[in-house]
């Protein structure tokens, strides 16, 4: 740590170096009047710096440097958790930040949040690594030259004071969900009336809001309740992966489909989509649909449903599947939900009207609880561009927004920006837009600053810093305050705002504000039921004209191109993140690149195979053959091809945002007609899975709901057979205390990959980079196997999280010559890294192939110099700050694998011992379990008959993976159930 601070100081220009230079470890605060509660974080306490390695083999002298004044909350070596909020302009999730010795080392969901229940998506957790990103802007610059904050303030204050009122000063933000920031912007506008606030979302949902404006008079985004639905029909909406609030929806979705705890009913999910999304792969029935026909399909559906209720609407001839779905939907009135993810006003209007027809409004679509996300309006954005083009804008400030990358609109954005005389970028990460800006003002990472949010009316969360800013950064709010001449810090402003606007008598429950504030800060979340609902009423849109326009199929022989967000990278905002880039896309299982996915039939027609590079409207991309994709559909993920995002994101894939055009004023992520031609080159994609069939093996066992209700063990008949056959010469070992076990409900798992990032963060799993993944050297301790079955044009998909199964008869343990892996008295398959000599025999003999070998020095733990393989800067001192000090950083040449988060087990056991009580069931949560949005993973003591694990083990659906080998795995799966019936199939 000591070295780290030094190197940072070296990075900064001399006059900006922290004044605490002399005291490198204990950073003292010289201005006590500005003390904040988080100030202790600057005390980098009890840092043990290893210094002065002596000659030869002699032991280095290690220094131990205590605090000068020890803050009372800090116990060396004990982690603190602080409640905060993740918000990157798209998803918002209340979080807990785990801080060890002053360093945030993990993000977990805040379990006080009703919507997420303590879960967090992969991106939310991975955003931690952006904090330690060496590419972050660290220094304010003016036209590329470093400048001091005081000068920035002086110059801009002067500019603002002497402003020509005929021109606008535009602030472009992403959707502001912070009430206090909103007020601050309003205050700023009050001070400088020529200031205009515009909202720009990286990925646009503006058609959705406009559809509600047409239908309900207000451009709202309603709350969706998948858990209240019995039938969900999705149209091109990846609501489990990327659409709106995937973490929340994933949780609702799984809750409605679980069959544990006595639940016998299961939501049915039908998905119409042109490409195979994560959501579609989870659907009970999935119908490939040409993207250009989505409006036609919905028009047909509307028409069918309208006719059923006796409305007279223009008839639209429905495809067979739509007619059947209409019947099902009609039968589930008020308990169904139709959603579409397409940013098209016709489509969204139809969806609103269909939900209205189905009486879902108020049931599964809560228009009275609008969500404040995605407030951007593409029409307003276009209007802004027009004003910029016509020289009406004198200055533009991009507040954590990147329109040059996200909405280039055929270069229009870029040209418009160039016409604005003064351009300012406030950014916590490098952006393409900043390249066009005069002032580039670095902003802190969200873990370094204060803020609040109001996602749904009356639900407030706080964002609080978990570390002192690593660089000389300042929040956008503080910039505005400085330029407007407001007193105090943004923290003061925020607190005052809360005192005046949020602190109410009901919420206070008799507490003083300070107490209320502290409690809110501790919990991170405050729900004010009094403010919860808003009333809007149905006014109805002009459906007839929409139906008329879309009454026929548009699909022909033309190739269409669908631009979509994939699960790891999303809209590309967090692209400069090694954890996310290394995360395999859940459907294709490819990482580190985007690609053009094509249907098997089309690939066969053109003679393309995976890795052939093709040119799609001038962009060269490798091909990935994707079963289940529409016949004439091509698809490419957005979020890649960043030209100015930092070291990791550069040179990854191609940027396809330039294909985005405005359609009816909304950004359209569909190109109806493209040309695709083969090139002579090939490109190897980094795929973590190359074989996609289960080969008829009983790995993922599944059944249908009807069969399940008849016989809970259906699909899992093999389990009983195998159990009967098991005999052993040896007695089983007795586990006298705990016997840890894990149950994974395959019916709940949606394959969102959040567990993979949680595991990587918790266990210091190395990032290996694209080339190493190509060589199948990826290191993830948990992986989500995905298998296709059936028709290649529309296969069924199953997936299975696989980590070390902690077999009681573990084949790996027998073969290690040096006893580096053996079984603990608590049933854990232990791996002593420091004993391992790296024969890889255990890995060979592992039937589950869950052991990972450190092929190279990925983490800088090796003693041999100059041999690191580190494409993502993970061995930099800065990024190493993310390492969990409770887990050994593995050296080159050793095997590693899932330890069932032994450090968490040990920690909770110690707590129980200190309290002199028995360990409670559910007290220990593994990292993967903790973050799982669907609660698919349960961990506990199999020796405790009352534990949840023991209860689940009685489920007839339970089986061990490859149980016929008699490895006695401690990880047990519950078979998957599909809500599918012979009488009900769509095709």
């Amino acid at each position, binding site marked *: 740590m000591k070295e780290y601070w030094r190197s940072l100081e070296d990075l900064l220009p001399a006059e900006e170096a922290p004044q605490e230079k002399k005291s490198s470890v204990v950073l003292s605060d010289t201005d006590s009047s500005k003390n904040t509660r988080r100030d202790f974080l600057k005390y980098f306490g009890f840092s043990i710096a290893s210094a002065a390695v002596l000659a030869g083999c002699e032991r280095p002298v290690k220094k131990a440097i205590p605090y000068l004044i020890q803050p009372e909350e800090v116990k060396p070596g004990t982690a603190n958790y602080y409640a905060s909020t993740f918000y990157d302009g798209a998803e918002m999730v209340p979080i807990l930040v785990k801080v060890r010795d002053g360093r945030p080392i993990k993000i977990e969901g805040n379990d006080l949040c009703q919507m997420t229940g303590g879960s967090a998506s992969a991106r939310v957790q991975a955003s931690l690594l952006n904090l330690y990103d060496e590419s972050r802007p660290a220094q304010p610059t003016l036209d590329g030259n470093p400048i001091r904050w005081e000068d920035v303030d002086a110059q801009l204050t002067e500019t603002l004071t002497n402003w020509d009122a005929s021109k606008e000063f535009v602030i472009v933000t992403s959707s502001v969900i912070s009430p206090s920031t909103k007020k601050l912007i309003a205050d700023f506008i009050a001070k400088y009336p020529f200031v205009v606030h515009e909202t720009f979302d990286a990925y646009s949902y503006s058609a959705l809001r406009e559809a509600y404006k047409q239908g309900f008079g207000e451009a709202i985004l309603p709350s969706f309740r998948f858990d209240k639905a019995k039938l969900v029909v999705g149209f091109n909406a990846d609501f489990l992966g990327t659409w709106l609030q995937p973490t929340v929806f994933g949780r609702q979705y799984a809750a409605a489909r679980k069959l544990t705890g006595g639940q016998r009913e299961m939501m049915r999910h039908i998905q119409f989509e042109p490409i195979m999304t994560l959501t579609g792969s989870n659907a009970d029935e999935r119908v490939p649909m040409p993207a250009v026909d989505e409006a036609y399909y919905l028009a047909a559906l509307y028409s069918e449903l309208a006719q059923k209720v006796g409305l007279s609407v223009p008839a639209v001839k429905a495809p067979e599947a739509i007619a059947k779905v209409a019947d099902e939907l009609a039968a589930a009135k008020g308990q169904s939900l139709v959603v579409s993810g397409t940013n098209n006003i016709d489509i969204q209007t139809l969806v609103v009207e269909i939900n209205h027809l189905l009486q879902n409004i108020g049931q599964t679509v809560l228009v009275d609880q609008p969500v404040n996300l995605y407030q951007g309006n593409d029409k307003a954005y276009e209007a802004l561009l027009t004003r910029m083009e016509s020289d009406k804008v004198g200055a533009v400030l991009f507040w954590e927004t990147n329109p040059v990358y996200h909405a280039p609109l055929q270069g229009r954005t870029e040209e418009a920006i160039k016409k604005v005389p003064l351009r300012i970028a406030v950014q916590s990460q490098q952006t393409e837009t900043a390249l066009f800006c005069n002032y580039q003002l670095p902003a802190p990472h969200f873990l370094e600053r204060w803020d609040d949010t109001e996602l749904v009316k009356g639900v407030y969360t706080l964002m609080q810093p978990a570390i002192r800013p690593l660089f000389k950064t300042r929040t956008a709010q503080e910039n505005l305050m400085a330029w407007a001449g407001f007193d105090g810090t943004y923290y003061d402003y925020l607190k005052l705002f809360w005192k005046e606007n949020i602190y109410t008598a009901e919420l206070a429950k008799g507490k003083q504000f300070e107490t209320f504030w502290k409690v809110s800060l501790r919990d991170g979340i405050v729900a004010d039921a009094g403010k919860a609902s808003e009333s809007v009423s149905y006014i109805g849109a002009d459906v007839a004209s929409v139906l008329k326009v879309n009454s026929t199929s548009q699909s022909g022989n033309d190739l269409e191109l669908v631009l979509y967000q994939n699960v790891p990278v999303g809209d590309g905002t967090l692209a400069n993140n090694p954890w996310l880039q290394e995360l395999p896309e859940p459907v294709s299982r490819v990482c580190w690149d985007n690609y053009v996915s094509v249907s098997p039939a089309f690939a066969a027609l053109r003679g393309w195979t995976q890795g052939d590079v093709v040119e799609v409207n001038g962009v060269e991309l490798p091909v990935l053959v994707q079963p289940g994709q529409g016949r004439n559909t091509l698809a490419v993920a957005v979020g890649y091809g960043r030209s100015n995002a930092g070291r990791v994101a550069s040179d990854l894939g191609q940027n396809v945002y330039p294909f985005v055009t405005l359609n009816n004023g909304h950004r359209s992520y569909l190109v109806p007609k493209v040309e695709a031609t083969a090139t002579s080159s090939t490109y190897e994609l980094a795929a973590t*899975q*190359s*074989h*996609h*069939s*289960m*080969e*008829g*093996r009983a*790995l993922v066992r599944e059944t249908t709901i009807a069969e399940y209700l008849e016989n809970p063990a259906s699909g899992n008949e093999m389990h009983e057979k195998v159990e009967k056959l098991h005999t052993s010469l040896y007695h089983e070992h007795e586990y006298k205390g705990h016997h840890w076990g894990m149950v994974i409900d395959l019916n709940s798992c949606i394959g969102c990959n959040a567990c993979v990032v949680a595991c990587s963060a918790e266990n210091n799993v190395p990032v290996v980079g694209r080339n*190493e993944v190509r*060589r*199948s*050297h*990826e290191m993830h301790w948990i992986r989500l*196997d*995905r*298998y296709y079955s059936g028709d290649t044009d529309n296969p069924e998909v199953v997936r*299975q999280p*696989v980590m070390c199964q902690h077999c009681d008869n573990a*084949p790996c*343990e*027998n*073969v*290690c*010559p*040096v*006893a580096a892996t*053996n079984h603990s008295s608590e049933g854990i398959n232990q791996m002593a890294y420091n*004993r*391992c*000599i*790296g*024969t*890889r*025999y255990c*890995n*060979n*003999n592992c*039937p*589950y*192939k869950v052991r*990972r*070998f*450190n*092929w*190279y*020095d990925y983490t800088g733990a*090796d003693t*041999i110099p100059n*041999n690191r393989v580190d494409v993502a800067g993970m061995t930099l001192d800065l990024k190493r700050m993310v390492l969990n000090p409770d887990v050994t950083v593995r*050296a*080159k*040449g*050793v*095997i590693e694998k899932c330890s069932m988060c032994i450090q968490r087990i040990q920690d909770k056991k110690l707590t129980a011992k200190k309290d002199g009580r028995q360990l409670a069931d559910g007290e220990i949560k593994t990292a993967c379990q903790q973050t799982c949005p669907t609660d698919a993973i349960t961990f506990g003591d199999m020796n405790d008959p009352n534990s949840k694990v023991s209860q689940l083990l009685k489920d007839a659906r339970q089986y061990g993976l*490859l149980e*016929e*080998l008699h*490895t006695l795995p401690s990880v047990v799966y519950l078979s998957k159930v599909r809500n599918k019936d012979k009488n009900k199939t769509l095709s």
Partner: protein
Amino acid sequence: MYVSPVREPLISGEKSYTKVTEDIYAPMTGKPGKLWFGGLTLALIALGFGLFSIFITVWDGIGTWGLDRTIGWGWGITNFVWWVGIGHAGTFISAILLLFRQKWRTSINRSAEAMTIFAVMCAGLFPLIHMGRLPLGFFIFPYPNTRDVWVNFNSPLLWDVFAISTYLTVSLLFWYMGLIPDIGTIRDRLKEGIKKKIYWFLSFGWTGSARHWARHESMSLILAGLAAPLVLSVHTIVSFDFATSVIPGWHTTIFPPYFVSGAVFSGFAMVLTLMIITRKAINLEDYITKSHLESMNKIIIATGSIVGIAYITELFIAWYSGVVYEQYAFVNRAFGPYWWAYWIMMTCNVITPQLFWFKKIRRSFAATFVISIFVNIGMWFERFVIIVTSLHRDFLPSSWSMYSPTWVEVGIYIGTFGLFFTLFFLFIRFFPVIAIAEVKSVLKTSTEKFIKKGK
């Protein structure tokens, strides 16, 4: 001793004891030829390349090899098993054939044993360098330490450590004890000088005393008795590396006999390859004759047929077991992405040796030379097939992957050839290639014409 009159002589030409001494001593005298120097240089270059590859492996990591998360062993262990297999011929010839009193072993046992030792040295290299943390390799020895940690005696790899090191030690002892009288012979042919001193030192002061001979014979016999099961145990234990595992294609009870016969098969082939060249190069045609060739080829037919039956048995058992994983593993071998390796193995190991049923072929040096090389290629592929094709597609299709070696792995393999031939070239230059005393002891009964010197 009674010798069947129908047996043809093992040694051709008119030989006396002195002639034997002279013939075998001849290659060690004078300046070595260009061929020898050229061969040694080539071998040293190969060795150097191998050492460089090993350096790269240790410095940069096993990542320089073509292995991955699914395939933990590739060329490294393939080469290990192959070399160990080759290292079976020598001790098999000296020990088991000694026990069976096969006289034809006398002409070939010395060089075969030397070959055994060199091959085992090459083999022993691989388990070491395939470790991710070679500097900590000493962990595999059960030595007392302040950690109180011992080793895992359940691990076949640990058994390997004991088996290979015991085998190397015992083979070395056996070989050297056999060499002592012959070193004595060489020593006595040398004129006074440093060379003579060195050979004196190496000969352990051998005098040829009848008492010594008696003890020597008794020791050799018991050592042979010990070495015979040892030979069988070594490849049995190597086969345990695979047989005790759970991987389909490895988890097979017939592995021990199948591996041992495979080992003898490949070992004999290698001996033949080398001997056919050596006898020509250093004029030992009289001592290594067609009848030797035929005897060895007969063993090749026998062991080759055992191997062939084992292959077929494997297929049958896989089908008969009804286990999908087993069945798939064998279908995948024959028709999966590595089908070519399987069919190379089948052709070279099962079909080619059957040609030895023809007397003409089994008595032809040229044909034997070609076939012996085929057998060695085939046996290498057998190990490759067992290791790589079993691993690359095991239980979970999600983890299936493909393997191809990198230049580093190839380099190490070439390096072991360098090591092997460097040692072999040094051996033929400094030690008698044929067991002089043993040949003399059978000279009367096995020679075309025995002449007594002086009379």
